[in-house]
C-alpha cells in the first residue's frame, strides 16, 4: 500500500528517467472547432506538473486524452513507452493495467459517484482488481482523506469538498502511478483547498493538475505547461519563471489589466488577482 511521506524538500525527479507520460504532436478538433494544436511534452516519474490555461483552452480535453478516454484527432500519447488509444485499450490486459495506474479526478465530483455508500465508492476499484484486505484498504484511504466518519452514508449527501475527498480516496485506493486532476480546487472552500495542496504535495506519485488559479499553481507543482488561447503549448518550464513573465501570462489570458486609483492618480497595469 502506498505510504504517505510528508517532506519539506522533495528530491527532484531524475532527468534521465524514461518518461511516464509522453505526448507527441497531439491535435484535437470537435467538428470545426479546434481544441488542441500540436501539443508535445514528456512527464517523468515523480514530477508534479501544473497545466495552466484560460477557460476553453483545452485543458480538460487534454486530460481526457491522457486518460485514454478520447482519441486525439492527430498525434500520439504514450504511457511508459506504450502507445495508448481508446482502440488499444480494448485489450483487457492493457485496459486493466492502464486504468489501475492512471487515474483521473474529474472537475465535477458528482460525475464520479454512483455507489450506494462511501465505503462502496472507495472499494469500487479494489474490488475490480480483486485486491486483498478490502476493508482495511478502504478504511486506510478514508482515514487519510478524512471521510472515515461518512463511510456508511450515500456519497450524494455529502458537501462538495467531502465528495472531492471521496473521489480522491476512490482513485488512490488503487495506488495509481499517475494522478490527473482537473481543476481540483474549483469547488473547494479555502480550508479544503489548503488541505488538498498539502495532501497532493505529500503523495509520492506523478501528478498533472489543471488550474487557472495562478496563485495556487506553484503549490501544485514546480513545472508549468501553459495552453494559449490558440490551443497550442506556449510554455513548458519552471513555474517561477512563468510567474515573472507578464507578457506570456497576458498572452495566455491568465492575467488582466484594469484601472487603479491611488488618491488622485489613476493608472492601468497588469494584475494577478487571487480567485477561484
Amino acid at each position, binding site marked *: 500500500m502506498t505510504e504517505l511521506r510528508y517532506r519539506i524538500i522533495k528530491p527532484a525527479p531524475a532527468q534521465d528517467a524514461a518518461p511516464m507520460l509522453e505526448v507527441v504532436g497531439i491535435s484535437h478538433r470537435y467538428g470545426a472547432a479546434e481544441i488542441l494544436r500540436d501539443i508535445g511534452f514528456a512527464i517523468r516519474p515523480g514530477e508534479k506538473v501544473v497545466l495552466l490555461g484560460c477557460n476553453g483552452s483545452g485543458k480538460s480535453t487534454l486530460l481526457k486524452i491522457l486518460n485514454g478516454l478520447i482519441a486525439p484527432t492527430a498525434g500520439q500519447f504514450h504511457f511508459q513507452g506504450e502507445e495508448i488509444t481508446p482502440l488499444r485499450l480494448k485489450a483487457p490486459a492493457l*485496459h486493466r493495467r492502464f486504468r489501475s495506474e492512471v487515474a483521473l479526478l474529474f472537475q465535477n465530483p458528482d460525475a464520479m459517484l454512483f455507489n450506494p455508500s462511501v465505503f462502496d465508492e472507495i472499494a469500487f476499484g479494489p474490488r475490480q482488481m480483486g485486491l486483498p484486505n478490502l476493508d482495511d484498504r478502504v478504511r486506510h484511504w478514508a482515514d487519510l482523506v478524512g471521510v472515515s466518519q461518512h463511510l456508511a452514508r450515500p456519497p450524494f449527501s455529502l458537501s462538495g469538498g467531502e465528495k472531492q475527498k471521496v473521489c480522491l480516496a476512490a482513485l488512490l485506493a488503487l495506488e495509481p502511478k499517475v494522478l490527473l486532476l482537473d481543476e481540483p480546487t474549483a469547488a473547494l472552500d479555502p480550508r479544503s483547498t489548503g488541505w488538498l495542496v498539502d495532501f497532493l504535495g505529500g503523495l509520492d506519485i506523478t501528478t498533472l493538475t489543471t488550474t487557472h488559479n495562478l496563485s495556487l499553481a506553484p503549490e501544485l507543482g514546480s513545472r508549468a505547461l501553459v495552453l494559449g488561447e490558440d490551443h497550442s503549448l506556449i510554455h513548458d518550464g519552471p513555474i517561477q519563471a512563468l510567474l515573472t513573465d507578464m507578457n506570456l501570462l497576458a498572452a495566455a489570458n491568465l492575467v488582466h489589466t484594469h484601472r487603479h486609483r491611488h488618491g488622485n492618480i489613476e493608472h492601468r497595469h497588469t494584475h494577478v488577482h487571487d480567485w477561484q
Partner: protein
Amino acid sequence: MQRDRIHLGLYLAGVLGATLIHAPAWLAAGLALVLLLSGRDAASLLRRAVLTVLAFNTLISLSYLGMAWWQDAFTQAPSPWLTLLRLNLRVLLLTCLTFLFIARTNLFQALDFSKSLTYVLGLAYSQTLTFSRAHDDFRLALASRSLTRPSLIDRYRASAAAISWFIEKSLHAATQSSQALRSRGFFHD
C-alpha cells in the same frame, strides 16, 4: 433567414400531416421522402432515429400486443398489427423529420420573428449544451474508473446517479432561469 423560416413552416406542416395521415403506406412514403431529402446522411439519420425510439417503442408495442392478446383482439378488425405498424411508422417518421429539421435549420434565425420564442430557445439551447457536456463526463467517469466491463448493477447505479443529478440540476436551473427572466422584466404578472 428566409430559408430557415421556410424550413420551419415545412416542418410544422410535416408534423401536422404525419399526425393526420393514418394509412401506413402514406406514412412509409413520407419516411422515404424524408430519407431522400437527407441525402448522404440518410443511413446515419435513420440509425439515430431508430436508436432514439427503440426502447420506448418496444415497450409500448409489447404492452399493446399483450393487451390485444388478452382482449382477443387478433380475430377482430382492424388488426392490432396494423395499429402497431401505423404507430411505429408515425413515431419514426416524426423523429427522422425532427432530426433532419434540426440538422438543416438555424433555429435562432427561424424563430427570430418572436422575442419570446427566441428567449425560450436560448434557455433550452444553453441547458442542452450544459447537460450534454455533463452527460459526457458521467459516461467517461464510469469508463475511467472501470478496470473491467462494468456490471449491469454498476451501470444501473451510474445511470440512476446521473438521472438524479440531472433532475436536481434541471430544477435548480429552471428556478435560476425564471428568476433571471423575472429580474429582466420578462414576466409581467
